[in-house]
């Protein structure tokens, strides 16, 4: 006799799929946000260093690092988002989530 399987409740679906995916995306966004804070802190540090009369050569190096950091982060955010967008477009959320079922 085939055992009747009860369909999942809305809460189970939410808990297993929506919330876990949402948490994953939120986690990624937080990591990227925290990384973006780095150049902002560096920028503030440069301004403070400048006010304290730091030598121009050090300020130039710090500004260069800051700009590279920012360029890389923007690139990373774009590439990460593009990758996720491609995955969602090609495989759809259903397929992505299938593995969890």
């Amino acid at each position, binding site marked *: 006799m085939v055992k009747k399987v009860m369909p999942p409740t809305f809460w189970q679906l939410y808990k297993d799929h929506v919330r876990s995916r949402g948490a994953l995306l939120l986690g990624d966004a937080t990591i990227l946000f*925290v990384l973006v804070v780095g150049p902002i802190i560096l920028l*503030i540090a440069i*301004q*403070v260093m400048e*006010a*304290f009369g730091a030598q121009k050569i050090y300020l130039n190096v710090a500004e260069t690092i800051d700009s*590279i950091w920012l360029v*890389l982060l923007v690139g990373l955010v774009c590439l990460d988002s593009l990758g996720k967008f491609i995955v969602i477009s090609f495989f759809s959320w259903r397929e992505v989530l299938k593995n969890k079922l």
Partner: protein
Amino acid sequence: MNRFAAFFFEDQAVRWKVYGTSSGVAFIYALVNLLILHREEKIVGVETVGILLVLISLSIVAYVARVRIFDEATARPLKISSARLGLVGVFATALIAFAYFTGIPRMQAAILDFRLERFNSRWTVYAAYQPEQQLQTRVRTINSIVETSSRNQIPVDSNLLAGAQTVLSNELKGPSLSAKTKQAGWAAAIDLQSLAYTRLAQTGAVPTVSPRQIANGPSYHFESPVVLADNLYIKGDHSVFTMDSEFVVSRATVVFDSIDFVGGTSESPIEIDGAGSNALVRDSIMRNVTQYLDGVIWVDVRFENSKIMYHDGPLRLRNVTFKDCDLSELEMALGILLKNPELVASITQSGQPVSFTYEP
């Protein structure tokens, strides 16, 4: 699940490792190109993003093709707890909010004020015992403060600037310093005073007026004397004042900022009337004028086809250029006062911007 999708949605640890490694390589590439090879920033930026794209793409291909380093049977999530990540995110947000609401210029102003206070108090205590080298270092400190404040428009306290200017001026009157150190110090003192006037105008302590307000109309032609008996900051946009008369500064401090003068008579466009009267002319072109230099602070001014006069009073020049001017009177007066023909020639005949101060 498809390996490509797994890279973005399952294997967090691998994904962030790939991002970190690729970013590190691209970062080193950019750093070497910018700081050592001194290549153009824009091109290096594009190349860096290109390298990042190529490295991440290759890593994804390798991951999908299960190259040995990526050949893991199970996907691994990132080993950071959501709570910890959230805490860091909140801290980062708080930091950005703090920087936004406090305002970086205000923070810089507090630091610069602190440095000026320190400068003023230390100078008073130790100035008498300081060797010349230390004095030069302190002048460099002042230059750095003035340059940083001017460039970034940092709201430094005008009283502290004026205080530093007074302290510096008093100390520079000491006889034991070399002429070079004194000139560097006087130049710094002029810059301090100029910045102090700007800050006074910005804070509203000294009213700022437009050329139209001074001229009482759209025509900037002055046919009768204008007595300026109140502190004023006249801010123009290279507005041309045609002078058939003069501005008389009487017991007040007046700043002419970006005002150009064209003369028509033998009267000086700017006349200082007695003690307690100060004028500063900044970023100006003086054409066809007969002007006494005494008592006025001239900053970034160009005299053209003018007759330059001098009475043996305080002479304060900062980046002043004389083009096709009659400097014979000035030359003669300075020749008697300075007794240094080479120095006089460097002021009157160089054709380059001159910074020179003489305090009787």
